[in-house]
């Protein structure tokens, strides 16, 4: 057990160090940091002083170690475009992305489960068939096209919902939320549908197949034989048993939702981290890129680590397999 955890932790650390190395190389070798900071007119003395100050005369690995140490404290330098600390820029954008991702995940989970249960229970109704066909289309369309189509229908043609931005937000000091105003909530609708659609269809199909499988088992037949109502059988006996894989998938997809937020945020001009990243790529704002790179890698590494450890805790077969493979 301990060896397994240690190995996974070491792997996670290695991934972070590699991503950090890429980020640091960008920082160090793309363009001249001294030139960036001082501009063309600086005197040679100033340059030497800054070079010494930044530690750029040190060997590569010393500089890299310094970068890692600063990154661990959330210090990624100063944005070249906005001339502000990168960490505060990211912290400012973080709530927008996390709120969007949260709403999208909840939406995907709730709608996915409801649709999955419905299509499993009423297998042959035309509405189920329509839902399944719709989900197939939803999976094969690119995210950004879905967003554009939603904007075209609900913002341009019908004019019901806003098509860009977060609406009014309430500042809670360290967190700005769109949950507390009507315009903020309205602004969340289209982006969260766009972002959650793929995961929704995924969960819908998963719940449907799991439900169909569970409904065939003996304990469901027995529950029916005991004279329980359909509702009790379907929801208390069947649905409960389909939820374990659903929760795992949702957990794993959380990282994907945050990653795909880059696309959704660009379509809806949502002021989150993804939009910040795309802008930083377009303007070659390397410190911001480096910070985003490290942050998104951290999200994924933590989520995968958590899921792996959970699996290990939940599924005893995994432990035996691993032990057997090791010998």
């Amino acid at each position: 057990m301990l060896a397994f955890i240690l190995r996974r932790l070491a792997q996670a650390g290695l991934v972070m160090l590699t991503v950090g190395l890429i980020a640091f190389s960008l920082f160090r070798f793309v363009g001249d940091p001294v030139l960036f900071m001082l501009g063309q007119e600086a005197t040679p003395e100033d340059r030497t002083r800054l070079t010494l100050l930044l530690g750029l005369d040190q060997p590569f690995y010393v500089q890299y170690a310094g970068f890692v140490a600063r990154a661990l404290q959330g210090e990624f330098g100063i944005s070249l475009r906005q001339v502000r600390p990168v960490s505060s820029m990211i912290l400012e954008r973080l709530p927008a992305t996390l709120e969007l991702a949260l709403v999208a995940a909840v939406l995907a989970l709730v709608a996915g489960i409801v649709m999955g249960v419905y299509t499993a229970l009423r297998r042959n109704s035309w509405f189920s068939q329509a839902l399944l066909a719709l989900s197939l289309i939803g999976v094969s369309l690119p995210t950004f096209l879905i967003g554009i189509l939603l904007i075209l229908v609900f913002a341009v043609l019908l004019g019901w919902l806003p098509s860009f931005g977060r609406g009014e937000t309430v500042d809670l000091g360290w967190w700005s939320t769109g949950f507390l105003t009507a315009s903020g909530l309205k602004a969340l609708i289209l982006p969260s549908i766009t972002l959650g659609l793929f995961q929704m269809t995924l969960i819908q199909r998963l719940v449907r197949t799991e439900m169909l499988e569970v409904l065939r088992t003996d304990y469901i037949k027995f529950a029916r034989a005991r004279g329980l109502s359909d509702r009790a059988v379907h929801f208390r006996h069947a649905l409960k048993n389909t939820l374990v894989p659903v929760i795992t998938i949702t957990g794993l997809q959380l990282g994907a939702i945050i990653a795909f937020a880059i696309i959704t945020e660009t379509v809806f001009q949502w002021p989150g981290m993804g939009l910040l990243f795309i802008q930083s790529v377009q303007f070659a704002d390397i410190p911001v890129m480096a910070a985003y790179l490290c942050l998104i890698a951290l999200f994924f590494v933590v989520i995968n680590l958590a899921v792996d450890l959970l699996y290990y805790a939940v599924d005893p077969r995994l432990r035996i397999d691993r032990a057997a493979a090791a010998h």
Partner: protein
Amino acid sequence: MAVAPGWWRRAWDHDLAWSFRRSPVTIVAAALTLACVGGAAFAPWIAPHDPFDLARLSLNDAFSPPAWASGGNARYLLGTDDQGRDVLSTILHGARISLGVGLAAVAFSALLGVSLGLLSGYVGGRLDAFIMRVADIQLSFPAILIALLVDGVARVALPRETHDSIAIPVLIFSIGISGWVQYARTVRGSTLVEKNREYVQAARVIGRGRFAIMLHHVLPNVMGPVLVIGTIHVGTAIITEATLSFLGVGLPPTQPSLGTLIRVGNDFLFSGEWWITVFPGLALIVLVLSVNLLGDWLRDALNPKLR
């Protein structure tokens, strides 16, 4: 001429042809794919206008709606964009670039994945452990994120003046590198099985070198699944390219793919010029859907378990 009927008969009776004939959806998908590929390949000859000939463009023609709408111009079937370019012609040219980048990226992925999988499976040991570990790690990130990050890093690392001229190779590289894992895993699996077969041992006994065995003996026997993965991958690669171009980190407006066209048109959605973005979007949907359906069919038809 005596040979031709025999050849045709055999192709017609082949399992694949049989399952193809029995699936109307697949026939439609194949026809649509053929139309898209044909339209894309022959774009310079069949497009009604040359959208990149600056001398022929006239801003007077800009924002002309589709021919059937009020105010439409019969010369421009699907209307024109903000620079007076014919939308139908830009779509044909854009599909050409989208398909080209998609196919090249798939080829690059397959080449990389098959080589690494073959090496990993045949050589084994530490190399195998290392390659598969890297594959595991890459698989824990979504492919489109990898492509986006690689593309972003490459764009920043290369000098700005060269961006437009090298946009296509950079895209092919970043999309290609995001998709090699599946090929490598599949090929490694089959290689592990094949390398213990008698014909490989025989080749080893008669003294053929490692690489000769890998290339001439093992490789031909592990390529079947690669074709299926490749077909399905084409749709994904086209979507990834379109997404990157839409985000503004793919192809520039001077050599637009379908994604770039959608991005450019998106700015005019609110002023009512919907056709500039909707028609390239539809073209992308038709292209990707038909390629995907074709790939799904091929996968099912080649899988003996499903017969």
